[in-house]
């Protein structure tokens, strides 16, 4: 299983000289299974270049959206495979008891916010509520609601060889938990991340910044460290970098995380980074 990061920024695209190394595109990750499955995690602005890179002979692509905040959805209309008539695109998103996913996504992908509607996309498009457990090709995909404002899921993808990548880009498991962490059963996201080989996880704030952003749905570096220890993860990629953080500031946060997590590999999420599991 190969994992490629195409966008690791949170909240808002942040191009510019200070974000060259980690990149300014918002949350987008490609997972390619050993049998050629193409899973795209979130449809941030990184999905535009990602879509252009997908070979023309790929016949099915699954887009797994964690939630419908703009930084995770903004790129969807620019995902080039949506315009390929011979491609099956399955879009998965958090369930709702009030409105189908198509209607919720259609609020953005329709005039006046966007000129083309979902129904006009030439690909063979299917939308699904994320299932707690499903299989996409040879990959087992688990989703579960996590602590973040509005219905938000995280994903856990397991390869036939038993390798696991967990994706929790927007997650505030420490909200209202003092001291954090609580026991595993009372910790949001625990089952998704438990003993994963790689976890891409929200690391938006410094500890000081978190103090003025409690309840905004994101984690501080110390919260991420405590969560990673509790879940016994093997490798962690801090993700969803704050749009105001420069490359140097992301470096500093990653270094702090490394000191808090001796024995756990830390590799901050950067556009262009790849992982083989």
């Amino acid at each position, binding site marked *: 299983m190969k994992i490629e990061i195409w966008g690791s920024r949170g909240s808002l695209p942040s191009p510019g000289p200070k974000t060259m190394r980690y990149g300014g595109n918002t949350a987008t990750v490609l997972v390619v299974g050993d049998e050629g499955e193409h899973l795209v995690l979130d449809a941030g602005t990184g999905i535009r270049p990602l879509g252009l890179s997908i070979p023309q002979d790929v016949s099915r692509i699954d887009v797994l959206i964690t939630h419908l905040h703009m930084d995770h959805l903004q790129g969807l209309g620019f995902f080039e495979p949506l315009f390929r008539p011979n491609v099956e695109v399955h879009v998965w998103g*958090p*369930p*709702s*008891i009030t409105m189908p996913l198509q209607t919720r996504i259609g609020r953005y992908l329709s005039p006046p916010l966007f000129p083309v509607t979902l129904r006009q996309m030439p690909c063979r498009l299917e939308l699904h*509520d994320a299932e707690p457990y499903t299989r996409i090709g040879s990959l087992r995909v688990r989703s*579960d*609601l*996590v*602590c973040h404002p509005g*219905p938000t899921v995280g994903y856990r993808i397991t390869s036939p060889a038993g390798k696991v990548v967990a994706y929790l880009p927007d997650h505030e498991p420490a*909200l*209202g*938990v003092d001291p954090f962490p609580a026991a*595993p*059963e*009372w*910790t*949001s*996201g*625990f*089952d998704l991340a438990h003993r994963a080989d790689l976890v891409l996880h929200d690391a938006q704030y410094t500890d000081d910044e978190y103090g003025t952003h409690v309840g905004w749905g994101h984690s501080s570096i110390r919260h991420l460290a405590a969560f990673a220890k509790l879940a016994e993860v093997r490798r962690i990629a801090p993700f969803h970098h704050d749009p105001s953080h420069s490359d140097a500031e992301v470096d500093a946060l990653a270094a702090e995380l490394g000191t808090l997590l001796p024995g756990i590999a830390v590799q901050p999420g950067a556009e262009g980074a790849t992982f083989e599991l």
Partner: protein
Amino acid sequence: MAQLPVELILMRQLASYLATPIFLVGPKGELLFYNEAAEGVLGYRFDEAVELPLAQWIRAFPLFEIDSGKPLPAEHIPVVRALNERDPVHGSLLYERPGGDRVPVVVTAFPLVGQGGKVLGAAAIFWPASPQDAQK
């Protein structure tokens, strides 16, 4: 124990910050949590009760009908009814505190339905009844 649904985790977190007594059960009626304010009414710290199956916590917290003083059948306990009937339930009952005193308590219980439409558990808020409350 597997991780609980995030809706229950958030409910516990909210309850732990409130001064309203709150009692939280899972989908089988098992006790998951009650907060400090509830400890004051029940007379036991949550640490002493921990997570008990329905059959055990209804013995640990003896409940009686407000009018007759007879033991309240499990299926009539408001939080159990809310769970089974998927509807809010309001009522009064007698609770026997440690030491044997029976105090009237007013309870409002409601089911916790998750985004998928599944009943994940139920919560009850409760408070000692005034004589007027107990007559309602």
